């Protein structure tokens, strides 16, 4: 998994590319979120467009990231869910937890 990180209007946008799965992408996701928080980020948007596979460990990291960011008074939101990731959030009922966007401008605006 490769992770891209950029800033836009005070929001840190993370874009993982590849698998978010046990032993590989899960750790990379955690590291990136912690790096962003250490750099002072409050609001994080994770663009999942290029996430090809997410297993239960990947979902676990997403949930951990969510609680960590929220506990620090920030917000974590999701952008561009691929259909299979959407399916997985549905069956785990995590759609009720995450705010999900299909449009980057709208997602960025939502943090105001």
């Amino acid at each position: 998994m490769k992770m891209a990180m950029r800033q836009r209007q005070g929001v840190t946008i993370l874009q993982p590319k590849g698998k978010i799965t046990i032993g590989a992408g899960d750790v990379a996701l955690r590291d990136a979120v912690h790096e962003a928080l250490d750099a002072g980020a409050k609001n994080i948007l994770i663009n999942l467009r290029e996430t090809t596979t997410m297993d239960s460990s990947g979902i676990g990291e997403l949930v951990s990231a969510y609680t960590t960011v929220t506990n620090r008074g920030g917000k974590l939101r999701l952008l561009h869910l691929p259909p299979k990731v959407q399916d997985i959030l549905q069956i785990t009922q995590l759609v009720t937890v995450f705010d999900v966007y299909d449009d980057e401008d709208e997602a960025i605006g939502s943090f105001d």
Partner: protein
Amino acid sequence: MATLTPRVELAIGSRFENIDLVQVVVKVSLQQLRLDDDTSHWIGMAVREAVANAIKHGNRQDPDKKVEVTFGIVDGDVLIEVRDEGSGFDPAGLPDPLEPANLLKPGGRGIFFMRKFMDGIDYDFRPEGGTVVRLRKRLETSAPGETQEDGSK
């Protein structure tokens, strides 16, 4: 579950990187059965979870301990067995990841995924040690997405 006529058997060392190897074998094996991509995807995901558990909880990532995967067809069902060398656990006592109290827990969704993605899953603990999980998928089933949505109320 009756005798499994093995089509393919695979044994790997307990390293997470090897999960991809198992998944690719499952994928190519299912291609031979001309399963549609979606069905094949969800079976592959269930197998990932089973192998991840075998590596992590069963063999505790000891690379010298093996995970064995057997892939076969019995009475029109795809049957996949995943065996480790661990000391087992109690599958009856697992928390429900959909309970509000568990919704934000980082773990505890692997076996839940296997149940959602497959038509049957059962555990067997061998007297000589080692856990066997058997995953079953009916081939006549329609889209797996339907099964999941039905099941997740």
